[in-house]
């Protein structure tokens, strides 16, 4: 299976139609415009509260909804399994002699492959949403939750329409849309049944809310005499007023629109076109949703309003699309929903595509921590099946400080034949994929702990413990030295606890939370051995571990006695730029005289910006130190390093890097800076390989040059 995934990645990477379309759209900018004048944080808190609350009371809400809808003339059927939904609809079709069905967009029916089932019983169900109709004609699944046919070109659509109509169709999009109008119009009149989904189901009134832009749901719910709505339990909200925040956010997040062209609120049986009353059936579908609600971690995924903004911002989705990154439901949230609604097995493969950059979490209008849930799938997989042997061995080795350190020292000698100007440009053949687009830095001949001993420390009442992390210790000791010297300039005495070792982020990222906890446990005591005001970190990934992850990792691993120590460290931990910016503001650090103004662009590492919330401080510090900022496009989009991601998914990682490099080059800056050695390995190596003049430098290196 793994081989198949890799093959489908390669295939997707060759077809960059979808990536091009998403790029031209420039979703982040159009989305921001749609949200102008709206407090997004407040809005999404409201939605999270409504839907989070609802997920705790699905049973009660379903019962209340059924009662209210039936009082208005609907029939409500509670279906526990996909089979129950399919049987109910098939039986209804048989009883009423239904042969033809028109459908408006419904992910719930995609989820259970309803059309295929109906076809087996000789019932023709035609999709009417343009995108859904296109993929139905192409016999494909949606590649995007909101725009299902986004991966297809107008030429491909033209061919599909030509085949369907028997007449050669043009490739003009406007003309193609009119073909769909003509072809589908007749189907509404001929259909015996309309099937729809719903965006919201209101328990107190029994109301279904359906949003569309095309108007097809209005036709589907108006023309056929029977209307069946298939609604997942997670669509339930308690009150009529709860509609407002959801339909305020949904179109803005989904398509950067203020509101969809049509919003229909259907309560019970409305009038048919012949004056009779509609036969309305509402199928409330469970399919593991109540199991999900009972899971304390995954319950929040039921808050999803299916806007697909997590796909639009995902750097991996943008490269490989929904047929690789997803099943029926696509992207980050799709991985999670697939695990519950469809099959865990499928999701286990897909989850490996998430690089954990956290972009999706930032934009989610339902405040779902998508990366956390993907990592939770990873964790459950790792604890159930265990990690692959090589990976497990490697991670265990990292946790054994002495062996790991000796091995790296040995490697620094063994690599010598490959090193040129501080980079490994070519790797031995079997590893060549790793240096195809990016040179790799060699292991430094002298680790930071040895370098540190040579920097004489001032005696001071302000003391800081430096947690270097593996990358600074073994690859970039010069960055560590710069960090120490800058702090010394401000009169701070730096100590380097010798017993420190890996922070555990690589283990955490692989789902081995227990091994990550061991890494944390190894570090807490050494870091607190001396009385220091600060714990300084110059690596955003380590900062994430120290500031955020250690306390709860230790707690989950039942090492409760260490939790208070980890909390103490979290409170003392500052990122280098965070502290330096403060020191500059306090005039404890000032720029040297007679500096020539030089230019930089800044890359926000995922861990710095989205896990630690640090993005303004490094910019301000560098600007105060005499550097001019030239912002790059998508400055906070992942560079593709993602720890071991670059080794596991090198093809995706390298394409992410290529985009990053282009955005950096476009600024024309002299330096690109970041506060993450991982990003600097990736970006610096990429710039070297492409022969760029731009140099990748850690913020500490740039500040050391300019501050006195």
């Amino acid at each position, binding site marked *: 299976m793994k081989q198949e995934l890799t093959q489908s990645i390669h295939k997707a990477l060759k077809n960059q139609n979808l990536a091009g379309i998403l790029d031209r759209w420039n979703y982040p900018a159009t989305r921001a415009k749609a949200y102008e004048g709206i407090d997004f944080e407040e809005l999404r808190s409201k939605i999270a509260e409504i839907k989070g609350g609802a997920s705790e009371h699905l049973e009660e809400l379903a019962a209340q909804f059924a009662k209210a809808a039936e009082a208005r003339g609907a029939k409500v059927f509670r279906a526990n399994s996909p089979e129950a939904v399919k049987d109910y609809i098939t039986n209804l079709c048989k009883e009423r002699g239904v042969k033809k069905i028109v459908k408006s967009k419904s992910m719930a029916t995609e989820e259970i492959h309803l059309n295929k089932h109906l076809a087996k019983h000789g019932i023709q169900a035609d999709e009417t949403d*343009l*995108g859904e109709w296109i993929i139905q004609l192409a016999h494909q699944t949606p590649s995007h939750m909101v725009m299902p046919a986004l991966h297809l070109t107008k030429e491909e659509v033209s061919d599909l329409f030509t085949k369907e109509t028997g007449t050669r169709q043009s490739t003009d999009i406007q003309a193609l849309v009119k073909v769909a109008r003509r072809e589908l119009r007749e189907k509404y009149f001929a259909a015996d049944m309309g099937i729809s989904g719903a965006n919201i189901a209101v328990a107190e009134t029994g109301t279904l809310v359906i949003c569309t832009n*095309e*108007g097809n749901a209005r*036709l589907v719910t108006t023309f056929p005499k029977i209307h069946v709505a298939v609604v997942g339990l997670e669509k339930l909200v308690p009150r009529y007023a709860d509609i407002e925040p959801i339909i305020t956010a949904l179109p803005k997040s989904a398509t950067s629109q203020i509101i969809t062209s049509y919003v229909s609120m259907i*309560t019970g049986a*409305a*009038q048919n076109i012949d004056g009779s009353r509609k036969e309305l059936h509402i199928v409330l579908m469970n399919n593991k949703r109540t199991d999900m609600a009972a899971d304390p971690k995954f319950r929040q995924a039921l808050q999803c309003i299916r806007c697909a903004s997590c796909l639009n911002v995902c750097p991996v989705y943008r490269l490989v699309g929904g047929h690789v990154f997803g099943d029926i439901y696509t992207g980050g949230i799709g991985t999670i929903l697939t695990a519950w609604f469809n099959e865990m097995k499928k999701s286990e493969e897909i989850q490996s595509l998430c690089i954990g950059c956290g972009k999706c979490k930032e934009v989610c209008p339902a405040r779902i921590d998508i990366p956390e849930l993907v990592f939770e799938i990873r964790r459950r997989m790792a604890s159930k099946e265990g990690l692959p042997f090589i990976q497990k061995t490697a991670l265990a080795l990292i946790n054994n400080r002495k062996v790991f350190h000796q091995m790296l020292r040995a490697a620094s000698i063994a690599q010598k034949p490959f090193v040129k100007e501080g980079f490994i440009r070519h790797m031995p053949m079997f590893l060549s994929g790793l240096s195809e687009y990016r040179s790799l830095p060699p292991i430094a001949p002298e680790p930071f702990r040895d370098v540190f001993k040579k920097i004489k420390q001032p005696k001071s009442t302000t003391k800081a413990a430096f947690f270097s992390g593996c990358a600074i210790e073994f690859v970039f000791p010069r960055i560590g030295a710069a960090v120490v010297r800058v702090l010394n300039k401000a009169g701070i005495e730096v100590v380097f606890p010798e017993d420190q070792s890996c922070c555990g982020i690589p283990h955490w990222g692989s789902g081995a939370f227990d091994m990550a906890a061991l890494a944390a446990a190894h570090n807490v005591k050494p870091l607190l051995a001396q009385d220091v005001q600060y714990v300084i970190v110059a690596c955003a990934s380590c900062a994430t571990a120290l500031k955020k992850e250690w306390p709860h990792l230790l707690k989950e691993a039942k090492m409760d006695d260490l939790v208070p120590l980890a909390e103490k460290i979290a409170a003392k931990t500052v990122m280098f730029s965070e502290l330096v910016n403060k020191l500059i503001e306090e005039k404890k650090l000032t720029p040297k005289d007679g500096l020539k103004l030089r230019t930089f662009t800044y890359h926000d590492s995922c861990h710095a910006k989205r896990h630690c919330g640090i993005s303004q401080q490094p910019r301000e510090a560098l600007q105060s130190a005499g550097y001019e900022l030239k912002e790059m496009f998508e400055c906070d989009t992942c560079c593709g390093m993602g720890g071991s991601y670059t080794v596991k998914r090198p093809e995706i990682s390298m394409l992410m890097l290529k985009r990053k490099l282009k955005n950096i080059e476009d600024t024309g800056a002299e330096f690109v800076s970041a506060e993450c050695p991982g990003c600097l390995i990736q970006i610096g190596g990429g710039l070297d390989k492409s022969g760029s003049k731009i140099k990748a430098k850690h913020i500490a290196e740039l500040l050391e040059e300019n501050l006195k």
Partner: protein
Amino acid sequence: MFETFKTKAEAAGNTTVQKVATKDEAITFIVDYLKQQEIKDTAGSWAVWAESPMLAGVDTKALEEKVPGLKIGVTPELAKGAKIGITQMDYGIAKTGTIAQDSTKADQRMASTLPWIHIAILATNRIVADLSAFMDRMHPSQSNYIALITGPSKTADIERVLAIGVHGPEHLVIVCVDELGGAN
């Protein structure tokens, strides 16, 4: 409020908002518009006018005679062959430029969905500030089918290129009438 409504409604694309003082002026405007759109008594060129409170007291026979092809009252066949559909809306929502209606009766939905052009009549004093204000005034307990419409029917399902008029109207013409009556 009207100005905001007009700006937001027209921002949705292919939408014009017209304001007139009286019911008579509204009818004159609509008749002129139908003539200008070459409404005639052949399938494909009809205009259908769904049951509307503003037609109370209006000599609808005379109106139909004035514009051959204008049909007061909707059937599925007429709606299918109509170029223009006319309905009277219950509310306007300024913040989003939305028009809203209790569409429990199918003729309202047919007239506002099937034709190429939808003419929506709205009492100017029925424009409310935002969605919440609208929801305070119209509740599902009064209506089986509440319809909100903003701009024309549209799609971006092929290569994310905007196309207007996929299943519903290509154009939306909103006629706001100051003295239409009806309490807000």
